[in-house]
């Protein structure tokens, strides 16, 4: 511990490097968490929209409606007329009122909005149900959010992978930095280590203070990175303001889970331990 204070400048340097490395991992982890969360939210409300042909007769429309209601896959189904669709759109994007008014015609087709049973979107039954509906007369197009779910999930995986890759490289770098920083303080005390060995100290006895230094540096770096990550997550939306609009929801960072935070700090401790362990080896001879 004396050491930590004695060599504070270079220790602050190495803690900063560890912190930055973990910050990179943390940012990508948080991004990945958010995508994962969004994907989950979407798949909870499995809504399929069946768009109908504009000139569909009332009879054909009722046939489709009946079939949807009877299906065992469906929880709820609701008819949305062209006018209702337009109304919904204007509710969401009131600033586009002028453009829509200029269009003269209503561009929104009538549709059935159908909520399916949870999490069965990719199942065979659901697939064949959608298939059979698609072949029905009067249905123009089917839109459902399976693609979105999958896209989110793969983006989430990508973010995690990038995070671990970049983070891995940086963590390797911080391992070498800790190792070298500790090596400097070991070197400054190599006479003392030699004397300790000559009076019968075990290697473990000699190592412990240095290992503690390394572990403390690693933990400090890890904790600091969590704190900075917290600030980034809090301040990032403020900085961007509302300019992102709907995208805001997607880039909205989600803080790390407790187990992720603990793992990050734990990884810091492990790196500190290994870094200082490796730096001592050459001084424990003869």
């Amino acid at each position, binding site marked *: 511990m004396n050491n930590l204070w004695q060599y504070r400048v270079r220790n602050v340097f190495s803690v900063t490097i560890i912190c930055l490395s973990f910050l990179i991992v943390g940012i990508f982890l948080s991004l990945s968490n958010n995508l994962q969360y969004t994907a989950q939210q979407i798949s909870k409300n499995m809504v399929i929209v069946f768009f109908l042909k504009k000139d569909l007769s009332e009879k054909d429309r009722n046939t489709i409606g009946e079939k949807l209601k009877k299906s065992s896959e469906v929880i709820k189904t609701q008819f949305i007329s062209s006018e209702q669709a337009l109304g919904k759109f204007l509710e969401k994007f009131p600033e586009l009122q002028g453009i829509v008014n200029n269009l003269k015609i209503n561009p929104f087709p009538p549709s059935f909005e159908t909520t399916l049973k949870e999490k069965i979107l990719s199942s065979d039954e659901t697939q064949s149900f959608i298939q059979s509906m698609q072949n029905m007369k009067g249905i123009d197009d089917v839109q459902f959010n399976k693609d979105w779910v999958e896209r989110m999930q793969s983006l989430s995986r990508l973010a995690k992978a990038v995070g671990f890759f970049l983070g891995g490289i940086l963590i390797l770098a911080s391992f070498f930095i800790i190792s070298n920083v500790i090596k400097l303080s070991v070197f400054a005390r190599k006479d*003392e280590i030699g004397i300790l060995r*000559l009076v*019968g*100290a075990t*290697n473990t006895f000699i190592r412990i203070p240095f290992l503690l230094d390394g572990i403390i540096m690693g933990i400090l770096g890890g904790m600091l990175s969590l704190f900075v990550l917290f600030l980034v997550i809090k301040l990032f939306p403020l900085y961007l303001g509302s300019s992102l609009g709907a995208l805001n929801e997607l880039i909205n960072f989600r803080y790390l889970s407790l187990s992720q935070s603990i793992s990050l700090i734990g990884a810091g401790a492990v790196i500190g331990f290994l870094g200082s362990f490796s730096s001592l080896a050459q001084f*424990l001879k*003869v």
Partner: protein
Amino acid sequence: MIELYHIWKQYQKPQWALSDITFRAERGDFCFITGPSGSGKTTLLKIIFREIFPTQGQIVINRRNILRVPDHKIYSLRRTMGIVFQDFRLLFHKRVFDNIAIVLQVLGIARKDIRRRVFNALRMVNLHHKMWEYPAHLSYGEQQRVAIARAVVNSPKIILADEPTGNLDPELAFEIMSLFKEINKKGATVIICTHDRELIRHFGHKIFFLYKGKLLRKETL
């Protein structure tokens, strides 16, 4: 028992710091190694506590070939030894007390016992009043006595002392030798390098004469 078999040591070609040294110190022996400066006394001691390796030869201490002990286990050999280094090797950023206590700390001895034993060891070398000083504030002779106290504090089975009285006045040197002799009487093997003939004449039991790295003769008085 310390046995050396055909020990050769070369630091740089072509000189040999030690050539073909064979000797044996029995348990409870009180040995002197003497010889002019540069004759290889320090080298011989360093080989015995395995700070350096001989170029050739074998050393057996208590039936253990110490050249085969791996680095991470050598502490068990060192714990049986009390060593007074020619250059003292004190920790200058630590107080006298801590310099001596370290020998007991590495053994995991309780703090209270450490205090008592360090005090006793310092009293034996008549330096207990300097317990809380830093070595840098002590004279050479006093530093040497700290080194001696550190070597005897754990009542070791083997004492290796490299010119332990080199900086002491004759009376004090005599006292220190008596201290070693006392420990020797309790069963410890003692090997002392010195060129103080007066001391050898008075305390000598087994004497080894070194000259230019060769063992010239052994005398048992």
